[in-house]
């Protein structure tokens, strides 16, 4: 960093004041004046907006990015003892004198033409632009007001803007209020097709059923949308959808990550997270169990399973690793992840030195590490080169999702048994037809009961091993100078939360524990937890956070565009006792959520970046959703929640670089092949190429925001990955048969019907005539154009495992498979409307 290279230059306000007050004073003043005059030339507009300086959004981030590395919280690299992150009696020291540029050394230093004095120093590459200098000018002139960093302040519950139509909820009022101040307005509502596809994908990760969409359109009730949303929130698919994001945050994966990257036993933790979302477990309990389930509820298997969180970090048993070094790595990993998940703070740099931008010291880092010092890591060093490896302590449990299903299945079995035991209606009826119906119904019940009983048997018997936390005598956590694990001269750190955020009572008799840490996260004056969470949830539904940076809520992050709305949402979640479902419900019911996402050049120009939410965004769908949606469209998706992870088709040899042991990959045969993306085996070192192509993270570290790319690899994946080819070919065959095609014939009408039906399963809306025309031309080209004919093309129909009987005529099936492939590849298919 620049700090070291700055040591030899004249520095700081003291020196600069001397300069200013001696001979060069006038000279400096003159320069400053020139700059001001220079700006003044074109600053009529600037004058008008003089008062509009936003410290949180504009000034603080600027100071942070350009100045704090040398004038910030890190005492060891602080130059001239000047801090610009807090007002350290600036005026008295002459650094920044409110309303007086002439007396403000900082102003002199950022405007002087003397390269030796000019700040920021040129070699940092952090120079200020004219408009940035002007911003600081306006800030100083208008009084150089500062505020504590927004994210660390106690939660306020701001007043809801009142002069709006009654039916508008708080979210829309805040949004419209901000728009109104800027002469902007919301977009018209999205049409029903777009809205239903949007909200169903957002809440379940699956497309809506065309029949349900039709019923919705025909439904005259005013609250049909509310009912639709409630149905989605009640669906077990909701948990599967929401859990994926949690897994990105806590870097959940099926393998150890380092070196041999062996599988580790963790599936029940994955299932518990999904189950917890479905149950709408309050977020405070959800968090507490993951951080300290073994301490707060040791007899509850679910609370123990939840502590798998403390074990899913990357571990290694590579030959020749040094215990002390790896304990230090694991310790630091836990602190980083805890900080990012719950505090939205990047604590990682404080492993070696005080944070450069945020109020976290190196002591804070090791104090947090000390909370985790009782987690038994000894088993990681004795891992085996087997699949799975051993990572004691492990327990053997039933998956929480299996329990969930068992409850449902037992209920169903009971009602079937009751029904079968009931008096037969035939005894009181002489109608022969009723007799036949009755017999048929009984047969159906009996066969269903047999299936259910077999399933109950299977689920009752199966158990899975899972890693858990077990508290042992806490080991000493020392503050490591420069993060060097071999240096044992540093002081021993006691568990404590970052001191800038809070103080916890403790004494020698009682060491603070992980349970105390979890409790503190949800205490009233600790508002960071809810702000971080609601902003991330908001981004799930609106495409972007109110504060743009979902990973960093510190000085280098971004202040919210709608601070009052964010505050209100954060407070509201707490008022809902940290239950996510009611909170999410009101977000997706808002008009802001429901507005159209169609770009409009002139409107978008007035709201660049859509900061003021003048329409919905069109985010590309996430990797797992793209997979699930294709399988659902083909009716291939298998609803098999929980248990061992599943293995989709994968290019041969992809695991060739893994060793200890060498890895063979066997794609699942049968139903496992078609399970949802959330259950796909997450091999950290070699994540499935389809997931990787669509930006799913390797989950080595916390990912608060997946990157979104648009690449040729994505095109190649959708065109050629057997998962998508099979989905297209099976969907094509099934749609044609459903439309009435036989093995001998598929009529033009049947093809059109199949096309419409397939399109709507994926894209929900009906196709326009032109779109149908393009697809029918594609179809007919493959049917009739000799140049598109080749005997080998029939091989396409053998991709994958599902082979339906009956099927349509081969030639028509092939041509229609091309139609299905085209639809699965559309931009619209991979984009949320």
């Amino acid at each position, binding site marked *: 960093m620049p700090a070291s290279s700055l040591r030899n230059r004249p520095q700081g306000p003291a020196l600069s004041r001397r300069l200013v007050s001696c001979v060069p004073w006038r000279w400096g003043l003159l320069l400053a004046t020139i700059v001001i005059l220079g700006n003044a030339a074109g600053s009529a507009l600037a004058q008008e907006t003089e008062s509009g300086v936003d410290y949180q959004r504009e000034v603080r981030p600027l100071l942070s990015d350009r100045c704090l590395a040398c004038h910030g919280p890190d005492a060891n690299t602080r130059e001239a003892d000047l801090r610009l992150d807090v007002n350290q009696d600036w005026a008295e020291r002459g650094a920044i004198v409110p309303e007086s540029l002439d007396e403000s050394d900082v102003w002199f230093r950022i405007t002087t033409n003397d390269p030796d004095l000019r700040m920021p120093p040129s070699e940092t590459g952090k120079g200020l632009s004219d408009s940035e200098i002007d911003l600081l000018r306006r800030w100083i002139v208008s009084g150089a007001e500062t505020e504590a960093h927004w994210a660390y302040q106690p939660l306020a519950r701001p007043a809801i803007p009142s002069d709006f139509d009654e039916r508008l909820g708080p979210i829309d009022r805040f949004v419209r209020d901000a728009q109104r101040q800027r002469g902007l307005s919301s977009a018209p509502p999205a049409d029903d097709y777009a809205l239903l596809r949007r909200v169903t994908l957002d809440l379940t990760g699956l497309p809506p059923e065309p029949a349900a969409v039709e019923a919705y359109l025909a439904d005259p009730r005013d609250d049909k949308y509310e009912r639709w949303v409630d149905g989605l929130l009640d669906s077990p698919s909701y948990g599967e959808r929401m859990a994926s994001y949690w897994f990105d945050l806590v870097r959940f994966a099926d393998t150890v990550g380092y070196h041999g990257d062996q599988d580790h036993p963790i599936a029940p933790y994955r299932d518990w997270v999904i189950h917890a979302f479905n149950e709408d477990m309050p977020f405070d309990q959800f968090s507490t169990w993951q951080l300290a389930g073994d301490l707060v509820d040791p007899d509850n298997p679910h609370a123990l399973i939840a502590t798998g969180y403390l074990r899913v970090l990357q571990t290694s048993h590579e030959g*020749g690793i040094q215990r002390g070094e790896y304990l230090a790595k694991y310790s630091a990993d836990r602190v980083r992840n805890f900080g990012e998940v719950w505090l939205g703070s990047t604590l*990682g740099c404080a492993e070696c030195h005080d944070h450069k931008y945020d109020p976290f010291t190196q002591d804070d880092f090791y104090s947090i590490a000390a909370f985790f010092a009782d987690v038994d890591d000894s088993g990681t060093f004795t891992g085996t080169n087997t699949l799975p490896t051993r990572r004691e302590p492990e327990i053997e449990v039933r998956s929480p999702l299996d329990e969930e299903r068992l409850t449902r299945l037992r209920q169903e079995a009971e009602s079937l048994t009751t029904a079968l035991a009931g008096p037969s209606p035939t005894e009181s009826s002489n109608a022969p037809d009723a007799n036949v119906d009755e017999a048929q119904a009984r047969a159906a019940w009996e066969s269903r009961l047999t299936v259910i009983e077999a399933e109950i048997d299977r689920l009752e018997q199966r158990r899975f091993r899972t890693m858990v936390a077990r508290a042992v005598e806490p080991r000493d956590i020392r503050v490591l100078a420069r993060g060097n694990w071999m240096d044992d001269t540093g002081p021993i750190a006691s568990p404590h939360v970052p001191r800038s955020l809070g103080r916890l009572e403790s004494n020698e008799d009682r060491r603070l524990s992980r349970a105390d840490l979890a409790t503190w996260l949800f205490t009233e004056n600790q508002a960071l937890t809810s702000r971080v969470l609601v902003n991330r949830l908001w981004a799930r539904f609106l495409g972007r956070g109110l504060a743009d940076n979902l990973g960093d809520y510190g000085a280098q992050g971004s202040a919210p565009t709608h601070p009052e709305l964010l505050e209100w949402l954060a407070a509201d979640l707490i008022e809902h006792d940290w239950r996510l479902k009611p909170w999410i419900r009101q977000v997706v019911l808002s008009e802001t959520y429901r507005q159209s996402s169609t*770009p409009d050049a002139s409107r978008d120009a007035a709201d660049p970046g859509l900061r003021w939410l003048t329409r919905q965004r069109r985010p590309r769908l996430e990797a797992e959703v793209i997979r699930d949606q294709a399988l659902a469209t083909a009716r291939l998706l298998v609803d098999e929640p929980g248990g061992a992870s599943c293995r989709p088709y994968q290019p041969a040899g992809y695991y060739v670089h893994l060793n*200890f042991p060498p890895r063979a990959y066997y794609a699942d045969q049968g139903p496992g092949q078609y399970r949802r993306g959330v259950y796909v085996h997450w091999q950290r070192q070699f994540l499935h190429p389809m997931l990787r192509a669509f930006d799913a993270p390797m989950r080595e*570290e916390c990912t608060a925001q997946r990157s979104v790319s648009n690449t040729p690899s994505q*095109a190649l994946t959708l065109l050629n990955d057997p998962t998508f080819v099979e989905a297209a070919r099976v969907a094509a065959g099934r749609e044609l048969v459903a439309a009435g095609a036989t093995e001998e014939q598929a009529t033009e009408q049947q093809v059109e019907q199949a096309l419409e039906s397939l399109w709507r399963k994926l894209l929900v809306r009906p196709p326009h005539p032109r779109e149908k025309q393009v697809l029918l031309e594609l179809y007919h080209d493959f049917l009739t*154009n000799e*140049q598109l004919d080749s005997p080998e093309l029939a091989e*396409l129909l053998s991709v994958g495992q599902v082979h339906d009987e009956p099927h349509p005529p081969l030639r028509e099936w092939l041509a229609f498979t091309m139609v299905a492939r085209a639809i699965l590849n559309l*931009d619209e298919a991979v984009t949320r409307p």
Partner: protein
Amino acid sequence: MNPADPQWLRSLHRRAFLSRAGLGLGGIALSSLLAQSGAARADEGLAPPSPQALPGLPHHAPKAKRVVFLYMAGGPSQFETFDHKPKLRELDGQPMPASVTEGQPIAQLQGQDLRILGPQFRFRPRGDSGLEVSDIMPATAEIADKICVIKSLHTDQINHDPAHTVMNTGTSISGRPSLGSWVTYGLGSDAENLPGFVVMTSQGGRNPQPISSRQWSAAGLPGRFQGVEFYSRGEPIHYVRSPQGVTAAQQRRLVDGIQALNAIRMEEVPDPEIATRIAQYELAFRMQTSVPELADFSDEPQTVLDEYGVNELDGSFAANCLMARRLLERGVRFVQLYHRGWDHHGDLVPYMEVCSRLCDGPGATLVKDLERRGLLKDTLVVWGGEFGRTPMFQGKGSQPGRDHHMAAFSMWLAGGGVRGGMSYGETDELGYHAAVDPVHVHDLHATLLHLLGIDHRRLTIKLQGLDWRLTGVEPSRVVEEILA
């Protein structure tokens, strides 16, 4: 060309529709439409398939335009290759002085007696320069006047996985971009129909150490900068082959249909992302042809094949070296070839013979071949592993071996902007520490970037609130002394 411009859309649409007139016409029309206009490249909406240099880059005139990193994974022994330590031979079998090893991190030799192991091969001065190279690297010895050996490298990590991560990303913490990603991010790529950063891993030799795709990850940078793995068997790139039974013409017809529908959609929903997707489908289709061609060596003269010692892309390091040349010729910015047989805790002599047989000749041939083609002057060749090996004996096989060593190891550089026939830096007489002119991995990175025209202090991205750079937060230096 503005993708949101209705005029453009209409032309795109009309041309795509021409496909009804006959096979491929639409395809040709559409691809030429997208390719013919240079403006399409520059346009924001139509993201150029090969990303161009960042504004302001290169920071200074580059000496090298592209890189091939011959990555000898496992940690080749410097004492058997480039760092001649007669003192070790003299003290062979003696205890290592405790004063040297005390407080030092030790890998597999933790808790064992530490004894000195002498060099297992003879060293000789080579070429006009007299650069010392051992007998086990005969082909490399022949190019001694072209290479610069750095003997004083050192790193932070003593186990394979984290040491690889340091060599590739500058830190052992996961989730940082790799060297190849940084370079393609900064400089873009001249490859038309290929990724800018390609990785290959060869088979052969001893039971290999694993290598993680983290080593070529773009983490923190956009996904398109991540290293793309080319395979010797099966598909050269994942999903680059059309599904079974589907010909190029049939796939083209399908892509035309997709493009036409996307164009229709864009009339209604004028989102530049759709235009980008249209462009990416074109690139993807072109890759379906260009990549298999690239992997087909039949256009190479027999003399070249003989020199590398290969006939086809067969998974060998030799074949990958030839492939690397073909990639570099086509404008690929960064090629990384892993060979994973270099972890010799025991049986050092037989394993070094295996490694030499597999890697020595092809590496030297690549340097000579590049030179013959006029490419060596602006291609940087880098040879080395994640760390080196101990001067101490380890007895894990039937013959002596050496443990991991991070305090000193050797690598060599050749080509673009590097002086040949020299060595730089020295270890102490027992070869334990980098004693003279030590070069940390960050210094190596700073030097590589410098040769490519990049000031390592100024190539940064926002990560974790920091302006993160490949060379980390501590000061590092360009090793000026080795620059030509």
